[in-house]
């Protein structure tokens, strides 16, 4: 992993039923992914309010990733379908405002995909690191 002076801070919203278990599996299997990925467990990926993502950036995140069950596998039947639409719209809007599109991502990770979880995080962290610090959605007050 390429590291700039400052390691990127990444917030990962993980659904309780698939992706969080996937992260667990990655840990159990001793698969390495950056320690600067901070996991926030949510009951379903569709619990992630767009405001959460913006708040994460405000408070210093350099990248935000949302992980949920694969489409069709949602514990609540259809939650991640809604996530998919919402995040598509939000990410497109952020891009429209000139915020680097590589800073946001949605990835479907099942409980069995520990390897995918680690690989996703490694890849995402690398891409975010290449962008450098989040400047466009920062809140200067939080950096004082």
């Amino acid at each position, binding site marked *: 992993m390429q590291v700039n002076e400052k390691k990127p801070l990444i917030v990962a919203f993980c659904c309780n039923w698939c992706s969080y278990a996937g992260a667990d599996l990655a840990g159990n299997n001793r698969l390495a992914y950056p320690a600067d990925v901070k996991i926030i467990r949510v009951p379903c990926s569709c619990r992630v309010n767009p405001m959460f993502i913006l708040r994460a950036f405000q*408070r*210093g995140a350099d990248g935000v990733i949302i992980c949920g069950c694969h489409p069709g596998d949602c514990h609540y039947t259809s939650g991640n379908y809604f996530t998919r639409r919402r995040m598509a719209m939000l990410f497109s809007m952020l891009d429209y405002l000139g915020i680097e599109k590589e800073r946001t991502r949605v990835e479907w990770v099942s409980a069995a995909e520990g390897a995918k979880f680690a690989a996703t995080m490694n890849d995402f962290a690398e891409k975010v690191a290449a962008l450098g610090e989040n400047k466009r959605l920062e*809140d200067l*007050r*939080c950096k*004082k």
Partner: protein
Amino acid sequence: MCLKGVKRMRKCALANLDKLFAAIAENADLYLPVNDENGAASYKKWEEGTEMSDALNTVKSPKDFFFPQSEDLMTFKTEGKNIEITDIREESKDFVVFGVRACDVRSFDILDRVFITDPQDSYYASKREKGVIVSMACTRPTETCFCAAFGIDAAAPKGDVTTWKTEADLYLQANTEKGEKLLAALEALTEEADCAAVEAQQAKTRAIMEKLPLAGLDTEQFGGGKTKEYFDAPEWKELSQSCLGCGTCTFVCPTCQCYDIKDFNTGRGVIRYRCWDSCMYSEFTRMAHGNNRNSQLERFRQRFMHKLVYYPENNDGIFGCVGCGRCLAKCPISMNIVKVMKTLGGKKDE
């Protein structure tokens, strides 16, 4: 006021305006109205090449300089049960606000009476102390202007220095010690002048003022002690019925000074800041146990009663409005203090 013999009149050719600005900016930050690409003016810091706007006025009032929309007051660090308070007030820098219109100059008097009365607000006071107001007489008042209703002469604004911009020159006259000091520093760029051109311009402006659609707006019927007379007026219902409850009028107003104090947790500490608030907002007076102004009618009434009755009652009859006309131009539903005054005042003639 152009007073021969009493105050010295100086002038500077408009061609040399940039040099004048550069000279002012040498000792202090200089702010002046600048147009954006849509022709809307706002105060910007002067830099080489900045062109002063000819717009009648800025969209936002210059109250920002002394009472910014948001302002950090102090910070806290908490550790366990302990709290540490840090006073983050800093010595303000000297600054000059150039091109303030007569109405906005009056607004500073109105704000002073709120913030510089005991107990003094040191955030406001220190900025007020450091700021030099250079006013500029109006020459092309517009239909929304009604400063004359409040005894303001748009052709002779107050402030530390008054300026008049004619075809060829900028005339300058100091009104205060601060103003004298500023003009003394500009001595080399200005020359002694007589008042003829200024007086001619003033006469012209005053003639236009008399022809304005809102000329003759009557304030007689308002003022302190009129609470009972207007508070329960049935007209409030009609006036307020389409009010959206937004804060546009409040935030473009040069005299509105209600504020909120809020805390922001940065993750490393807490910043306590204050920001403009609006009595038009539904949660302005909301408490845990209820709200004493529950309807938009009550909130709407509060804003206008405050400007027309409550403020004058506490401040020697001075109204809390300067007739700048910003709310007339910007209210989404075109409801404003002039309509309120005419509707409430009009009923007395019947």
